[in-house]
């Protein structure tokens, strides 16, 4: 926004990820019995990281564009690896999203009572990785953080999860590891193929020296490696199972994790291999369209509320991938905005279903719930608002994201847009069905009327998320202005290739 300037001699971006790494050490040193202390340390640092992200977000000058707050340190110069950080209009909303989700996720983690220390350490490590990915400008560093974000998921789900947690954890990890393997191949191709022997993304993007044919071979790998994490068809099945099995804060973060995938697709694959992108993006469009319709349709057939949200994530991430595939200025803007909106919305969904309902009722099966509106009207309203955002109701963040995506996709693939748009009524159908079954249907189990009251942590967390959904919905310019300048270089890169190809 460029509202104020921050001191230039302070490494703000390093501070952001360090603010998640430091409490890992602190919590590790806190004695086992002091559970409350660990929670407070975790939450306070989470909010610190949010504040830092917000500072950077507000201080970024869109007028100057490009990467700002750049930090550069030689790390392994012999190999062309450096510690290089920087943010632009694409990464800033993502950092902010991560800050929001970890802060609210920390609040939603208050009820974790077994192995508290391990839980917080892993959760914060995961977040460190996510922050790191979004600020890295060096492919190698990017990858290191990426792995750091992915690996703790296995233990978090395996230990604190529910519903087939071992299977879910294993499946998620295997998928993501397979994705990583593909990413490594793509990275090495860039490293060697470009002849530059560097992992510096800015250098790689400025001189696309990788031959077009080579790009066409390696783009699918790099893209697919990340797309697995974004839940692209047919590599999406980890996502619903993983989301369902994970404990609440991790489900909330799984939503952010999927953004790592689409962010990687955009930042690494499409930016650094534009010629490959031009060849392969139509194929991606086809797969992403399947995501959109397929995910929405399957969500209708689910009985577990978390599965509904899991598959709705598949559908919504499909819209992101579809927009990436369209690759126009508007489409990419919509994609980034949808990444943000979907992240917040999913976090809200999971805090209602995973934390507020499941932790009390110990079931998420629609046929067993019902009438919860009488007990928790707040949760009902939160769920409905999240649902409305997901079906693109004006006044909420999701509307703008979906509208801009359809604008962008129409420019490139009108027919695809027509089919994809039909997923919106389907989304409406499964969300409203869930609302009815969980909150308004008759009470099937009288025990449910005796559920305990919501805690202040739950109220605070959900309120923050809802306010953000509404805020962005009412005044999207707060994000769109930034995103607009952020995606411009990538569009220029893609268009440059298109023009050269003619």
């Amino acid at each position, binding site marked *: 926004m460029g509202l104020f300037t921050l001191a230039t001699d302070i490494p703000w971006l390093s501070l952001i990820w360090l603010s998640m790494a430091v409490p890992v050490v602190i919590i590790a040193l806190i004695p086992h019995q002091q559970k409350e202390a660990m929670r407070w340390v975790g939450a306070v640092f989470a909010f610190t990281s949010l504040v830092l992200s917000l500072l950077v977000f507000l201080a970024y000058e869109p007028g100057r564009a490009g990467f700002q707050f750049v930090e550069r340190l030689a790390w392994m110069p012999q190999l062309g690896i450096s510690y290089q950080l920087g943010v632009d209009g694409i990464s800033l909303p993502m950092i902010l999203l991560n800050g929001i989700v970890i802060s609210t996720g920390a609040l939603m983690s208050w009820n974790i009572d077994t192995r508290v220390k391990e839980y917080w350490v892993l959760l914060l490590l995961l977040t460190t990785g996510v922050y790191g990915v979004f600020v890295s400008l060096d492919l190698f560093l990017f990858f290191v953080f990426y792995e750091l974000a992915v690996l703790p998921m*296995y233990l978090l789900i395996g230990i604190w999860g529910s519903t087939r947690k*071992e299977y879910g*954890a*294993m*499946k998620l*990890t*295997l*998928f993501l*590891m*397979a994705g990583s*393997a593909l990413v490594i*191949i793509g990275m090495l191709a860039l490293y060697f193929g470009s002849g530059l022997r560097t992992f510096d993304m800015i250098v790689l993007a400025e001189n696309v020296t990788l031959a077009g044919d080579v790009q066409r*071979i390696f783009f699918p*790998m790099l893209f697919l490696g990340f797309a697995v994490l974004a839940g692209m068809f047919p590599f999406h*099945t980890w996502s*619903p199972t993983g989301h369902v099995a994970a404990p609440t804060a991790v489900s909330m973060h799984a939503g952010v994790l999927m953004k790592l995938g689409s962010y990687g697709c955009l930042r690494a694959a499409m930016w650094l291999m534009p010629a490959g992108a031009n060849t392969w993006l139509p194929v991606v469009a086809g797969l992403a369209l399947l995501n959109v319709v*397929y995910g929405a*349709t*399957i*969500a*209708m*057939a689910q009985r577990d509320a978390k599965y509904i949200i899991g598959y709705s994530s598949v559908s919504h991430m499909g819209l992101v991938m579809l927009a990436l595939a369209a690759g126009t*200025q*508007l489409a990419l*803007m919509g994609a980034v905005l949808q990444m943000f909106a979907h992240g917040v919305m999913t976090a809200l969904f999971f805090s209602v279903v995973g934390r507020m309902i499941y932790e009390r009722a110990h079931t998420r099966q629609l046929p067993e719930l019902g009438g919860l509106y009488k007990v928790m009207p707040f949760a009902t309203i939160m769920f409905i608002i999240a649902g*409305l955002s997901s*079906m693109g*109701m*004006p*006044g909420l963040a999701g*509307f*703008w994201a979906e*509208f*801009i995506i*359809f*604008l962008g996709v*129409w*420019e490139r693939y*009108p027919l695809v*847009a*027509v089919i994809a*748009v*039909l997923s*919106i*009524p*389907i989304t*409406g*159908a499964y969300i*409203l*069905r869930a609302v*009815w079954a969980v909150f*308004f*249907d*008759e009470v099937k189990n009288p025990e449910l009327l005796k559920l305990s009251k919501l805690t202040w942590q739950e109220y605070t967390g959900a309120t923050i998320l809802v306010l953000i959904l509404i805020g962005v919905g009412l*005044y*999207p*310019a707060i994000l*769109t*202005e930034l995103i*607009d300048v952020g995606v411009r270089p990538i569009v220029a890169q893609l268009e440059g290739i298109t023009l050269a190809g003619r």
Partner: protein
Amino acid sequence: MAFFLQYAWLIPALPLLGCVLITFTPLRQSKVASGWTTIGLMALATLLAVGLLAASAQGFALRDGQLVTLELAGHGEADAHGEATTHSEKSKEAFAFPEPNVVQRFVWAPTGTTSFAMGIYVDTPVAALLAMVTITSACIHLFSLGYMASNARQSRFFSFISLFTAAMLLMAMADNLLLFFMAWEVMGLCSYLLIGFLYERPQAYRAAIKAFIVTRIGDVLMLLGLVYLYTQAGSLAFGTAPGEIFNPEFLARIGSETSAVGLSHATGIALLIFCGTVGKSAQFPLHVWLPDAMEGPTPVSALIHAATMVSAGVFLLARTFPIFEADNGTALAVVAFIGAFTALFAATIAVAQYDIKRILAYSTLSQLGFMVAVIGIGGWVAGMFHLLAHAFFKALLFLGSGSIIHGMEATPRIADLHHKDEYAAQQTAQDIRNMGGLRTRMPWTFWTYTLGFLALAGVVPFAGFWSKDEILADAFKGGHWVVFTVLAVAAFLTAFYMTRQWRLVFFGAFRGEQPVVYVNPERRSGHHKASHAHHDDEHGHNEHHANTGAHWHEDPLMIAPLVILASFAALGGLFNLPFSIPGGHWLNDLWGQEPASFSLLVAGISLLIAFGGIAAGWTLYGTAFKTAQERDPLDVRAPGVFGLLNEKYRVDEFYQASIVRFTALLALAWAWLDKAILDGIINGIGRVTLFVGRLNFIVDDTVLNDGPDAVADGTVATGKRARRLQTGKAQDYIVYVFGGAVILALVYLYVL
């Protein structure tokens, strides 16, 4: 006058304020306080809207904060006409909107290189619509104060209808299609919330979901229309300046350029936008939601599903009319066809219904069909005129039916039923077979309802006659014989089914002592008792004077709005008399359009139709229904046809069996595919990799590692290692699987 123009934005802001006040402040604790707050604010908004209409009718306009006077009455048309002929070879002149009276814009959302400006745009059609919406909405707010008094959530009801009204007003005033669409969606949301307001009833909630989803199908296609338009025009703002969507050069361009599918851009955009109308105004084939929406409380049916929201679709059509006109006539032909078909289709269904609200609902469908059809044949003014007139008399009829149902629910048999099953009691109370003779029991309701009935049937000199006559005259004059014939038949049926209803409700003997009791297929046990304990005290007092008739009371709070609306139903025609007298052609002049010519022939035909319908209905039902259990005379004469009509041509069943089932099956099939096939492949890959890992291990262990000299040690070691391999630790498996995956990937990439 400048005041009304300058502060036009207050018109939607006031109801919104009302909604906010009674949602977030302690006002919500009190039903009466929240009711009167919103009514007061609505009244204020009504004053502003009427003032705005008066100001714009006198030609005042605001330009850069200065009050100026516009030329009225078609003088501005000459130059618009001149521009138009350059791009349009058609015989009729291009349609042009009157100059706007107020335009206020501010930057909202920058997208790409451009930015969306949002704001308000008021011209005379908008001003007229605003006045109509505020007046009906204020009446309905007032009515709800009495009608909803027994509902525990009355203040929430007020907050919803105020929010709805704000959205409708904002939609009318929107300066661009995106804001229009946003307000449109918020209306859809309110409609959903209000249909499902009595959410304890599964029928109500199901109807709410159905309404939301079905209209959403139209909405998303409309959204695509906007997207299409935006990619062509680079803007969605109303106006004729370059870069705005009614710019003549732009319209000429999209009318002549052909898109990939063989239609011109204008046709494509217009048809997609029309999908929005089909959904919102419940035209065939998306009409199925509106009759079910009658599950909502009656004031909701009156406000949203008769007067305002459903006519928003027609308003959309009127608003974007230049785009429809820009193509070669394909889009308008489709519009006319759908409209005329719906008009007749719905009218036939209405003939065979027993539920008083459903008859009115099908009548609404049919009347909306009239409006859509006439806009489709170019009768812009007639369509808008009928929209305004219909809103008043249909709201009146719905509120009247609400008053009747309210009275019926207090009759002893139904009050008894109410204690057992609330839903069945209400359905029984809405059945016109159980009524009769209410003329003397509810005189105010009878007289106001009669005015509404005469207006709807098209009897001179009530509002509906003039507007319907103008529609028929347009069809007649333009030589659209098919449309004319279809609409004429529909008009005959309208008079017929309204007479049937009116006769059965108000005349004859009261049949409610032995009613046809609605059988609720999903009655719940135990649940209703707790939920309406509060009803008991207010109905309890009726029971001891069961047969004295003393329970037929009419609430003054409910009568006042009826009287106001009835006066509009009676006199609304005066706003656009088709004669060249002072005050004649007022709407035409106001909207800067050609005055409609009055044809004695058409007026005669239309009167003949109306009286024919009334006479047929009166004679057929004069002796029918001595008791509630009797069969309908039509049912006796043609049981097959009557059954088909009674079951609404089974469209719902058809959709259920085709689209809904198809989607459900698809969902199940894909869910199975996901679980069985995709996961199966994944699990299979996992197993194969594990197997390959073991195989590698064996090869490694036996062939490469162990020499013959260490067979014994080797065996032991194999055992140990094998045991270690199968530790059950997931981390170990990951390593194997990961290794396998990399190998497979490499093989796949380099060898294949």
